[in-house]
């Protein structure tokens, strides 16, 4: 296997709060090859967004970060500010949930696109304009020339997200992080945006991280999935293997709690009782144990380490894993 483009080693993020330090990310390791898609799945507050911000070095100022983020042989955590700025501009790109947070409301779409392109690709104005039009056409915006003169508020939510993607792709990044890129969009638009991201990812051989709370979004589109809970990766596996035989009870519960189209109306949903632990309090044992139907005494005492299952690349953090052999627990 070739060297990964991105390797995250032992990343931990703590945020000081009035109630004490909040463990946002609790010692996470991940890696990603060029041309591959990693899905990071978890509920609000599980640390998935903080992890992506740690990769991009976009954490809040007061946050405490430890660990290494190796991108193509360089540690982003220890990079000189100027070099980091160049790298972020050219090689790392991000698409956020709400496109209005990444678009400037008082500048035209053309200005925002061309500014990025001219600054980082050293193109003259007419070449930058040509490239902007090509990019807007590539992300499926009708009449791209006219759009250049418009402002973000004149576009629908789906159009804005397409424009944000066009800006993210404008400098041919090698890694694209999409943080809940479709959560604010309607279901028909969501399908279009996910298709667009997948198409551009293949075409450009980018590495992509999709962060989402919806297992359905990553199921058909990610090569590998990492499930996060309370700041930790609790299960990680190639997508097929994960859905076929998940070992972590949290993953199973998360999947079971989603209403399915093929279930009859009024069927009670297998809900997960309770809620995630308070991240400012120290935690003994497995973070999911208080909500886990399989939890036994040991789960409340010892913190399970992430360990390998029999399938290569399948990791789980559980003392009572499910479906370890065919037919058991299924």
């Amino acid at each position: 296997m070739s060297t990964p483009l991105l390797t995250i080693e032992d990343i931990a993020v703590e945020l000081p709060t009035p109630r004490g330090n909040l463990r946002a990310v609790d010692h996470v390791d991940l890696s990603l090859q060029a041309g591959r898609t990693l899905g990071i799945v978890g509920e609000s507050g599980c640390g998935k967004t903080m992890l992506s911000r740690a990769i991009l070095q976009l954490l809040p100022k007061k946050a405490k970060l430890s660990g290494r983020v190796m991108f193509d042989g360089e540690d982003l955590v220890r990079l000189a500010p100027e070099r980091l700025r160049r790298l972020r501009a050219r090689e790392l790109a991000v698409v956020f949930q709400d496109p209005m947070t990444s678009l400037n409301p008082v500048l035209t779409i053309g200005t925002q696109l061309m500014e990025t392109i001219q600054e980082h690709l050293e193109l003259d104005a007419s070449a930058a304009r040509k490239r902007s039009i090509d990019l807007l056409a590539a992300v499926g915006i009708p009449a791209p020339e006219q759009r250049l003169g418009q402002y973000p508020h004149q576009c629908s939510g789906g159009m804005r997200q397409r424009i944000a993607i066009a800006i993210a792709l404008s400098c041919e990044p090698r890694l694209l992080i999409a943080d809940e890129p479709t959560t604010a969009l309607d279901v028909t638009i969501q399908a279009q945006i996910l298709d667009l991201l997948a198409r551009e990812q293949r075409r450009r051989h980018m590495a992509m991280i999709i962060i989402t709370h919806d297992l359905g979004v990553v199921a058909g589109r990610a090569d590998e999935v990492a499930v996060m809970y309370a700041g930790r990766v609790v299960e990680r596996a190639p997508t097929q293997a994960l859905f076929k035989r998940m070992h972590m009870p949290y993953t199973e519960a998360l999947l079971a709690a989603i209403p399915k189209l093929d279930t009859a109306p009024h069927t009670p949903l297998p809900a997960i009782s309770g809620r995630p632990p308070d991240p400012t309090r120290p935690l003994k044992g497995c973070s999911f144990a208080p909500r886990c139907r399989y939890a036994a005494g040991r789960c409340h005492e010892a913190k399970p380490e992430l360990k390998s299952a029999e399938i290569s690349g399948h990791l789980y953090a559980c003392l009572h894993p499910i479906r370890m052999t065919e037919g058991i627990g299924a």
Partner: protein
Amino acid sequence: MMQLAAREEPLLNVDNLVVEYGLGNKTVHAVSGVSLQVARGETLGLVGESGCGKSTLGRAVLQLRRAKSGRVLFDGEDLTAMEGEALRQMRRRVQLIFQDPIASLNPRRRIGDIVAEPLVIAGVKDAVERKRRVHDVLSAVGLDPDLVANRLPHEFSGGQCQRICIARALVLNPEFVVCDEPVSALDVSIRAQILNLLEAMKARFGLTLLFIAHDLAVVKAVSDRVAVMYLGRLCEVGPSEQLFARPAHPYTSLLLQAIPVPDPDVRPAESVATGEPPSPIAPPSGCRFRTRCPRADQRCSAEIPELRGVAPGQFVACHHPLA
């Protein structure tokens, strides 16, 4: 047209309802002639994308937004013709649960007072009686009244706040509740808890529900029948199982195909949905879905399709319904 079987008595009968908003010198056609019925004890799911008018319809049913024309018959009485005290009395029987549970609770008031407020407004003067009813309804939604009554909303999570909102909606023993995206703001694990709670409350209090949501799977989980809305008009209405198994309207079918399935063996269908909904300020002539519809022809731009029966209990407004 009556969409219910003859033996089912409608508690709510919305008849050709039109709601419009002014926007400068333009008009937003939010709801354009929608008729639907909800039988006593039934849950009717109302689905559609943002801007399709589903929330406006829910509000117009409760007279929180007055209709331009059409009628809303609740238990035989026309709510659109009611005003003042008569409407206030009627509102004890119909309640609303909102999408954002945190924003719909006053941050400065204690939970006990928030849940008691409908009783105060309804004129329940006996404080002991009020306290008893708040206690009962908080227990019913799975909260410990002794622990929560004196606390403030910020001390609770989103899921707990939604439980409090449900308690507030139920404290007057209403017959009919409009749930407007009640679980959209909640995490998956909490969403299932709240959906189960709504089902339990419906059984316990004998409620009739209008359940508005954009998520078809969520709607199917709780609804007896489902109505699909697009740009202010009803596309299709029918029994949940039947509608999901055999959608007759191309839009219903498109919505179903666009849902991401949590199964890696199901390859996402490439770009089933094309384009975006047009503006409700200038909706397309004829069938409003025709600009995105693969089956549209000239007739669709000339003639507004009427809702007509295609199967028992299933009605579709389309010139070229799916077989």
